């Protein structure tokens, strides 16, 4: 118990910094939105952009004391709380319809990513396990998938660090490149949201990319990204079995337990909240009760927005320009090729299924 409170205390300075920057960024955004009259300039003053750029500037220009590090790294907690709370906004029937199509697309996307990265890794003579880690990161969900896979295939620490660096570099680039490309192509919120959820690697950066495009797009981005996250265990299990058969990693004795351990539990929380609110809405009889529940759902939506705002500040603070330069050329070349191929491939799939996607 003492250890629990000690680690909680260690998180407080960084969390306090994130909260202060998130509130400051939101107030600054509200003020800029009120005084800027040019539409495209006003869209650049969105709270998500101010949070990320503000975080990047502070994280890279001001040498922050180590006391803040632990709390800053905890932004993943806020991201996942925000995603679970988002579940209240979706009827479970919509989640099932979009999730069904999403899962089918994601299976194709993951297979393509893994095949493409494996091929390119061989061409550029990257160590096999580093290639596998990058393909898991590109195909599924970035950092947590790489960490999950590295233990299962006995990858070296430096290979894991390298793969994570590659994913984070492209996550940072995606924040700028995808919304710009989306606007140039005149994509709908639905199509762009799905594209960002399928193609941007790390969950935090994917949600931020959707949010930068529009508030409507981020709902589709989150659902598509959850489909990728949900399949993480199966892909890592495949790699673990492949390496253990060749004697390059330890055996997987209990596959069911392995899948459960790798399954991202916050996806269950998201689904549970979606089911709960769908049942509550279905059970309502009077319009007054309906209005009351809508107000409470909006309350949870606002809290989810705040949780994302904390996440975006954390993403900015964590993005290190120095680390980007240090990553090295070969893995970056493989990364560029993989990201470009996945972006084009998923864009094609999005245009094919856009017409049959349900509106949220």
């Amino acid at each position, binding site marked *: 118990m003492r250890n629990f409170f000690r680690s909680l205390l260690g998180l407080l300075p960084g969390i306090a910094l994130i909260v202060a920057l998130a509130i400051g960024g939101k107030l600054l955004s509200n003020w800029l939105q009120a005084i800027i009259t040019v539409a495209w300039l006003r869209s650049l003053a969105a709270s998500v952009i101010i949070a990320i750029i503000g975080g990047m500037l502070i994280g890279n220009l001001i040498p922050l004391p180590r006391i803040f590090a632990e709390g800053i790294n905890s932004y*993943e907690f806020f991201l996942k709380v925000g995603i*679970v709370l988002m579940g209240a906004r979706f009827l479970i029937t919509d989640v099932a319809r979009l999730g069904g199509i999403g899962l089918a697309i994601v299976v194709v996307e993951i297979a393509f990513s893994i095949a493409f990265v494996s091929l390119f890794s061989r061409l550029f003579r990257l160590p096999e396990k580093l290639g596998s880690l990058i393909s898991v990161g590109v195909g599924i969900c970035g950092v*947590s998938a790489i*960490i999950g896979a590295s233990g299962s295939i006995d990858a070296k620490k430096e290979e894991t660090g390298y793969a994570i660096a590659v994913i984070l570099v492209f996550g940072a680039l995606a924040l700028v490149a995808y919304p710009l490309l989306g606007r140039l192509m005149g994509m709908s919120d639905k199509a762009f949201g799905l594209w960002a959820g399928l193609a941007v690697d790390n969950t935090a950066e994917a949600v931020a990319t959707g949010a930068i495009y529009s508030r409507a797009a981020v709902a589709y981005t989150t659902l598509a990204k959850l489909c990728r996250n949900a399949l993480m265990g199966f892909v890592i299990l495949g790699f673990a079995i492949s390496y253990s058969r060749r004697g390059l990693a330890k055996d997987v004795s209990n596959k069911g337990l392995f899948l459960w351990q790798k399954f991202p*539990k*916050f996806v*269950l*929380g998201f689904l549970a909240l979606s089911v709960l609110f769908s049942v509550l809405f279905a059970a309502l009889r009077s319009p007054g009760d309906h209005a009351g529940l809508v107000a409470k759902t909006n309350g*949870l939506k*606002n809290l989810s927005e705040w949780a994302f705002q904390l996440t975006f500040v954390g993403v900015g603070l964590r993005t290190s320009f120095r680390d980007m330069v240090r990553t090295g050329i070969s893995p970056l070349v493989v990364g560029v090729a993989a990201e470009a191929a996945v972006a084009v491939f998923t864009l094609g799939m999005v245009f094919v299924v856009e017409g049959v996607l349900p509106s949220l």
Partner: protein
Amino acid sequence: METQKKRISLDWWTVITAAVIAALVLGGILPTIPW
């Protein structure tokens, strides 16, 4: 392996935190925070 344990426990903490927040908002205890 230690990292993996942390990830799992973080996921459960996020679910517990979100469940408590949802219960407080549904029960009218937590006021609506404007966005």
